[in-house]
């Protein structure tokens, strides 16, 4: 383990999640260092990722529920205007990429994906030291606030999207129809059915994996750069920090947009009979 105070320690500290899990010797506890986290393996959970994704999720739901409770057909107020703008935007994505009339559930999926991911990505603009350092002062070993820089966070969402894809495929084509679709391409001969099936299942699984890794990769890389910039002398940081943050003003909504659009495209494919 790196020495406390060294650059390596600093980087590692800022890129590690606050992990609560079952340690083979210590039982259920909060991991205090890398070794404990590794020892916990799968039976652990990132408290910071969960906390901040829920905070952002509740902010999203709260904002939109507040707006929908006060919704008026007449002249909309500020909050409703904002919410309707987001809805129009998501509606535009659906219109462009979804054939036919999307159901309320499809709309809700697209809206949730877009706005939730946007909020979580936006957390990245919080100066990199604020939360980890404050947490350290409070005795919390790690604290990484951006849920989308955690592969578990992004993969969790895209896994949800995968379940929706499978659900809609079966709903629209039936279990048999879906199985037939999976085994009849790309080689249109019954002899190739098992190979087709394997290929199609891989293609299906690749969808959420690419979704998750694209978002995670962009966010994580950005985070690493921010951490590296934070290692510069404080009076020079702004030279790199400001352009990078401005660049991220672009990346943050773009990644939320890409995730949403591709998810809608996949859901649309699930609705179409081949």
């Amino acid at each position, binding site marked *: 383990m790196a020495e406390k105070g060294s650059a390596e320690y600093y980087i590692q500290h800022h890129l590690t*999640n606050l*992990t609560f*899990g079952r340690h083979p010797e210590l039982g259920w506890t909060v991991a205090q260092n890398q070794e404990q*986290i*590794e020892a*916990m*393996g*799968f*039976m*652990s*959970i*990132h408290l910071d*990722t*969960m906390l901040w*994704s*829920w905070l952002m*999720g509740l902010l*999203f*739901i709260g904002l*939109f*529920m507040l*707006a*929908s409770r006060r*919704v*008026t*057909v*007449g002249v*909309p107020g500020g909050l409703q205007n904002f*919410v*309707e703008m987001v*809805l*129009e935007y998501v*509606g535009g994505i659906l219109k462009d990429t979804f054939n036919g009339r999307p159901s*309320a*559930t499809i*709309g*809700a*999926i697209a*809206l*949730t994906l877009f706005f*939730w991911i946007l909020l979580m990505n936006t957390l990245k603009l919080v100066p990199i030291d604020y939360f980890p350092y404050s947490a350290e002062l409070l005795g919390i070993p790690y604290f990484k606030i951006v*849920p989308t820089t*955690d*592969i*578990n*966070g992004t*993969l*969790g*969402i895209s*896994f*949800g999207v995968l*379940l929706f894809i499978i659900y809609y495929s079966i709903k629209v084509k039936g279990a048999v129809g879906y199985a037939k679709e999976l085994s009849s391409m790309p080689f249109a001969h019954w002899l190739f059915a098992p190979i087709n099936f394997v290929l199609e299942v891989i293609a299906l699984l690749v969808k959420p994996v690419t979704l998750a890794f694209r978002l995670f990769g962009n966010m994580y890389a950005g985070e690493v750069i921010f951490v590296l910039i934070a290692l510069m002398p404080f009076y020079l940081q702004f030279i790199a920090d400001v352009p990078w943050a401005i660049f991220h003003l672009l990346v943050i909504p773009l990644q939320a947009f890409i995730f949403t659009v591709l998810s809608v495209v996949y859901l649309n494919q699930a609705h179409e009979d081949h």
Partner: protein
Amino acid sequence: MNMNLTLLGQTISFFIFVWFCVKYVWPPLTTAMQERQKKIADGLEAADRAKRDLQMAQEKAGDTLKDSRAQSAQLLDEAHRRSAQMIDTAKEEAKAAAEKIAAQAKADVDAQIATAREQLRAEVSRLAVLGAERILQTEIDAAKHAKLVDDLAAKL
């Protein structure tokens, strides 16, 4: 960068947020937006219709004005014609009446002249007879000499 339960936690969170969204966010907001869209469309249509109606009404008013103007001109003409006719008739009537009165007066005058002449004749014949009597100093039998006196009177 290790996989753990966060994965499932995040999936469950995602489903919960989507569920909330389906239940409380998407339908009321989209409904309101669609309703407003419809309302605006209706409003615009109503405005268009009102504009069309106004134009039609204006055209109608113009037509009516033109009609009434023509009608009034016609009425005025008629009145002029009628009054001229009436004046003509009255003139003719007056002329006829005047002629009649004049004729009557002339007839009266003629009659009076005739009467006066008759009286004068009678007087003259009486005077003539009286004169003749005085001259002849004899009585003339009026009946005997009536023819003579009458002849005399007729010559006057």
